[in-house]
């Protein structure tokens, strides 16, 4: 995936469409947007940077997982099999991007009340396990783009095959000097950012 920081306006629509698509419970933000400020007044730059699982080619989370719950799909997407996860949270300590969330107990957005939406959606989430972005794998299987890509209101996100040098994402990375976060760690993330 390529995220164009020149286009991104930091609206957090991606964070919430992720929530809607995946029905993630309170406090579980598979996707978030941070603000990053540089410079001194009046020469200041503030950039909004969406963050989510980087789907590293060399995922440290998978390496440390004691049960094999964290695994990599053949297409490179890093996923968690909730049935295998014991909730040791080792992966959370291993992820350099702080992109994993532990659901300690079942919780609803309105204390003491479960909305019909939550009734329908929270079956997908069990307590006591770790979860994270899976690039909307169920959507991909239906031939759709991840929800954050499909909904981005400044069209800052492009989804595609990094291995294909002719793909849109590969071209964008080439033409606009796309970069990864914390490349020094050797994780080789699948999310590239285009400079603002």
């Amino acid at each position, binding site marked *: 995936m390529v995220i164009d920081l020149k286009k991104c306006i930091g609206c957090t629509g991606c964070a919430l469409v992720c929530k809607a698509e995946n029905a993630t419970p309170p406090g579980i933000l598979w996707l978030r947007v*941070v603000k*990053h400020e540089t410079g001194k007044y009046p020469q200041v730059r503030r950039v909004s940077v969406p963050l989510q699982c980087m789907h590293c080619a060399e995922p440290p989370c*998978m390496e440390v*997982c*004691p*049960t094999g719950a964290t695994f990599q799909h053949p297409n490179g997407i890093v996923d968690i099999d909730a049935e295998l*996860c014991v909730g040791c949270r080792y992966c959370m300590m291993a992820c350099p991007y702080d992109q994993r*969330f532990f*659901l300690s107990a079942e919780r609803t957005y309105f204390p003491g009340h479960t909305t019909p939406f939550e009734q329908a959606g929270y079956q997908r989430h069990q307590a006591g396990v770790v979860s994270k972005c899976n690039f909307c794998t169920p959507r991909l299987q239906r031939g759709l783009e991840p929800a954050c890509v499909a909904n981005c209101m400044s069209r800052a996100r492009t989804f595609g095959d990094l291995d294909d040098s002719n793909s849109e994402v590969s071209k964008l990375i080439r033409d606009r000097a796309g970069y990864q976060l914390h490349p020094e760690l050797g994780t080789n993330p699948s999310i590239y950012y285009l400079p603002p």
Partner: protein
Amino acid sequence: MARTEPFQIRIADLRERYRPQREWAEGRGLLLILAHFFTGAGAGAWLFAVPLGSDTGLVAGFFLAVLGAVGHLFFLGRPERFWRMATRMGSSWISRGLVGLSLFLVTAFLYLALLFLAAHTTTLGSILLALSMLGALWTIIYKGFVWASSKGIPLWNTPLVPALYIAYALRGGAAVLILLAGLGIQLGAWEPLEPIKLWLAVSTAVLVLIYLEVMRGSGMTALRSVNLLLFGKVALPFYLGAVLLGLIVPIGIGSFAYLDHIPAGLLALVGLLSLLGDLSIIYCIARAGLYRPLPT
């Protein structure tokens, strides 16, 4: 701000540039700290109790380790699936640790059973003892690697951490035996422990200093973590627990022991304080764990 619920704290953290890890130090995460402490001290006690011939030490070491294992178990989000954790020996230190700890607990249990039922040494007993010592050693060694292999937290992500953990586990083991002795229920000879203990305390102190100094120079995140320990929100447990109670007082009393005979009560205090110090340092290092800055 009324952010008392863990998930609210987590959200508040997300806007920080350097986010603290909380899962392994707060709430049920405290169980993990206790588990690491107890298994470490237990395995350490076991290792010391064998050459000293202290059966009480063995029993104490075993039960401490059991306590730790229970802590480990209930720290898990899904305790009923714990056995799955043994399936990734090839890459995961937790898998390796589970196997080591299991080896230790099982063989230690069998050895103790044999010891108390048969009441004499057998070849089987020797094999079990050897295996249990292997398990204990394994237990002591793996812990540090669990923390050290956490790429997300620069403070831990260094080979010094395993060394530190080994030192603390050994010191903890010795402290358990000294505590028992101080309480007057130590059956074997404990005197040889005292210099070992002192040496361990001094060397640990040096190791902590080296560790902190090295981490100060290991990038912004580790530096911030160290600052948290030395000047920040973790400073109180660090100075009070890890430094004062865990190092200075025991070293002081230990040095005093060379001049004079130590009263039993004081001895127990030394053991207890050392243990508290060990617990504190594990806790402090866990609490000071920060993630790398994002986005850069």
